[in-house]
């Protein structure tokens, strides 16, 4: 008897007991459905995180700080360590360090990571926000290489700015884009919010108001009740040249700034910042030093060598990519737990298979006896039952995957419409990679075969003399 014949025989046996086969398969369907939807949630979360890391350049970027903050040492309660840290004078991030970093091989972009506060006036509204100077060279990189509309300014002394989508919303303008199905709520219309096209914003002027401390020429005048405003406001106009895409759940917003401005232009703006308060308090800050420098390297592989070179200069480096290994380990544990729950469902299904097949053998005892009487060997009879078991596993896995997919689609829809905030694009919470699909099918078939092992052996060992007398 060849494989094909035994397979056909196994299939026809399943077909003859359609209802019972279907119910048994249904058990596997539910088991595989539970298993795959659970695991796909784990892989989905992991994929979203890894994608977000990649999309936000976190694998290729780091922040340089004046001094390496050794958290472990602080937590260990080693006071001498803290003392040593406090004693150590922080290495200032000077222009020469910035230059040195820029010269390093593999570094694509390095600029001071700073921001300043100000008020924005646009569309008859005013909001207080943070502005961030970003060099024009950043136009090649995320997110400035992928703006919703327009593009980053051409040079560092340009009089143009890029505004964030969220800032415009705060200013009462919802910029429409294809993925957004935004309907104005009552609250929106009361506030005067309007939906506008990106083109109606690009090219318009926006007013930036900054303040600096007004140091009085005659301090006594204040005491005498002179009319004195401690802040002096400066107002400047810039052209909006670009709008960023709206943030989603997985966007890591480094600066949380509302407006991106060319650095040379920014330097000319008189402004109040913490550093100038320090100036007033007389700490004295060297010209051209920064609190943080953002560094972007060409690819993941060079992050570590560049990082080591920068650390060798005596400054601190923080890279989020370092945290990824920890996160991955956490996900592995989560996946295993989710998978274990799904596996329990599959084990219950396997018991169903054993039960069904033992029933079927009992019912077909005489038939098995006839097969033996006409020359069927034990292995052939075993194989026929294995085919039945494998078939239950295979069909169960295919429909189980389908069930898992449908369930996760619905869950995703519910999560997106009811739980996650609706001012962002849809998020895929579940992910079915190829290994999960093939793995689920393989696992289901293996479990089913294991479940069919005992019944098949039992069928093969049936005594034909008794079986032929069996009713």
């Amino acid at each position, binding site marked *: 008897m060849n494989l094909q014949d035994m397979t056909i025989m196994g299939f026809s046996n399943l077909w003859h007991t359609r209802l019972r086969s279907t119910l048994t398969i249904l058990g596997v369907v539910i088991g595989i459905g539970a298993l795959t939807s659970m695991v796909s949630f784990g892989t989905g979360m992991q994929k979203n995180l890894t994608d977000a890391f990649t999309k936000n350049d976190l694998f290729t970027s780091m922040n340089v700080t004046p001094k390496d903050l050794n958290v472990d040492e602080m937590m260990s309660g080693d006071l001498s360590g803290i003392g040593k840290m406090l004693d150590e004078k922080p290495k200032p991030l000077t222009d020469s360090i910035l230059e040195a970093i820029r010269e390093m091989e593999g570094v694509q972009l390095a600029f001071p990571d700073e921001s300043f506060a100000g008020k924005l006036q646009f569309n008859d509204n005013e909001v207080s926000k943070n502005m961030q100077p970003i060099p024009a060279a950043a136009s090649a990189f995320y997110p400035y290489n992928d703006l919703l509309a327009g593009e980053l300014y051409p040079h560092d002394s340009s009089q143009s700015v890029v505004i964030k989508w969220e800032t415009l919303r705060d200013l009462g303008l919802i910029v429409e884009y294809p993925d957004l199905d935004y309907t104005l709520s009552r609250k929106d219309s009361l506030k005067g919010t309007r939906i506008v096209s990106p083109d109606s914003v690009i090219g318009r002027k926006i007013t930036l108001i900054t303040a600096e401390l007004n140091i009085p020429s005659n301090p006594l005048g204040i005491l005498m009740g002179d009319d004195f405003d401690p802040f002096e406001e400066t107002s400047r106009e810039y052209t909006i040249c670009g709008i960023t895409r709206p943030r989603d759940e997985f966007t890591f917003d480094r600066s949380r700034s509302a407006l991106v401005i060319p650095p040379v232009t920014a330097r000319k703006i008189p402004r109040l910042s913490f550093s100038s308060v320090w100036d007033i308090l007389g700490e004295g800050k060297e010209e051209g030093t920064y609190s943080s420098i953002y560094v972007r390297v060409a690819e993941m592989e060079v992050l570590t060598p560049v990082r080591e070179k920068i650390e060798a200069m005596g400054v601190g480096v923080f890279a989020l990519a370092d945290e990824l290994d920890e996160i991955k380990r956490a996900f592995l544990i989560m996946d295993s737990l989710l998978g274990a729950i799904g596996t329990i469902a599959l084990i219950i299904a396997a018991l169903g298979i054993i039960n069904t097949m033992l029933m079927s053998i009992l019912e077909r005892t005489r038939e098995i006896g006839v097969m033996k*009487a006409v*020359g069927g060997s034990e292995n052939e009879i075993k194989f026929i039952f294995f085919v039945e078991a494998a078939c239950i596993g295979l069909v169960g896995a295919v429909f189980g995957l389908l069930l898992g997919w449908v369930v996760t689609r619905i869950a995703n829809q519910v999560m997106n419409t009811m739980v996650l905030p609706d001012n962002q694009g849809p998020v895929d919470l579940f992910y079915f990679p190829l290994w999960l699909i093939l793995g689920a099918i393989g696992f289901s078939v293996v479990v089913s075969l294991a479940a069919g092992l005992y019944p098949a052996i039992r069928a093969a060992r049936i005594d034909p*003399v008794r079986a032929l007398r069996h009713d």
Partner: protein
Amino acid sequence: MSTILSIHNLSKIYHKGKVEIPAVKEVSFEVTQGSYLSIVGKSGSGKSTLLNLVGGLDRPTSGTIQFNGKELGKLNRYHLALHRRFGVGMIFQSFNLLPRRTALDNIILPLTFAGVPSRKRKQRATKLLEQVGLGGRTTHFPSELSGGEAQRVAIARALANEPKMILADEPTGNLDSSTANEIIQLLVSLNKDKGLTILMVTHDRETADAVSDSIITLKDGSII
């Protein structure tokens, strides 16, 4: 004429708990090729057990069964299956057709186990059905056949792999006398025309006398 089956000191003892029930006791006889041998005895005389031992459905407790030069007791399970497949063809009182398969598919079953290619199986099964006089019954299920027709299908199935010997266990036990006679005539013609060796178990001494070359009578497991 050569000897096809040689049985020597054959015993079969069944165990029911600690009690030994001897079904066949020290039986010896020989069957020459092309003969028609009947085993006669009352129910419980051990004749069916003897047939099952020759058919390879059961193994002897002691003694030897030489079939076509092979010692059945020494064959492993696979080779014993091959003996059932190619060496002998069995017919039963209750026909033992598979109820969910058509007459044709019942005959195809042993051909499938023998690894005959699918198209040849169908050709051969159709031919066998015609040979037993049931040419028009290919798509009928066993439940749609009369007792005589069902036994004819069973005979066709027994002939499928061209066995050396037909083992018939009370082939007419479930049939009325005229149908029984037709079945016996079919067996006789297979014996006379095709030269097939036939070993038939029956309790009907009259029929046995009429058709057999020789008769063995069993009582309580022994030849008398």
